[in-house]
């Protein structure tokens, strides 16, 4: 075998096998994408995502409610103090 033949066979076979691999690679990529789509469209996964969203919303609502409860407790305490003073003043006025 002369060197030209040798070079041609070597480069040709490497190029051919690279082409064959590219074909298989495209098929592998397609399969991987299909698998990903299947997982994303799966009912169980959608249900889980929905639950996750609901839990996130509920924790936000809980934080807001906690803040409001704290605010209302403070106001009630203020009003109780005010009420006590007013009763005391009414008692003083009645005695006069």
């Amino acid at each position: 075998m002369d060197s030209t033949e040798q070079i041609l066979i070597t480069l040709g076979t490497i190029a051919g096998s690279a082409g064959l691999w590219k074909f298989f690679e495209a098929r592998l990529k397609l399969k991987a994408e299909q698998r990903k789509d299947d997982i994303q469209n799966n009912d169980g996964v959608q249900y889980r995502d929905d639950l996750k969203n609901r839990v996130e919303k509920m924790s936000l609502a809980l934080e807001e409610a906690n803040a409001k409860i704290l605010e209302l407790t403070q106001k009630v305490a203020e009003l109780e103090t005010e009420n006590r003073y007013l009763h005391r003043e009414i008692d003083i006025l009645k005695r006069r």
Partner: protein
Amino acid sequence: MIQHTKETAKKRFKHLADVWRHSDSQPTEITLALVNLLLAPAATLIELGPLLFYQIILVGAGVYQLMCVAKGELKCRVRASMFTFGTFATTLMMYIIMVGLPTPSHWGWLVLVFSSFGSLKRLKTEQLHRHG
């Protein structure tokens, strides 16, 4: 009884296929690289005579694959495995053209072509799993 044997065989076959598709491929890559670096040039030199261009490419492919495995870079390993698959296919082609595959031990080159292709496929699957 037959049903049970059938199911067990099916399970074992599925496990083998899973191992073939997803197992760690570094040891295979190193073995294939060493074959390209040492065995293939020596065997072809003895059986087919001096084919300088092709034999230099074999050594280059072996060194490159060893370098990529040592670096641990997945992209480089995929590229090197593709090159290795090409060189094994070339070795098989050289044998077929020059002397054929006269003895059963010559069919080992075909096994190496399949092995390098399997290794390449495993690496690509790993790459797709990691990067999508």
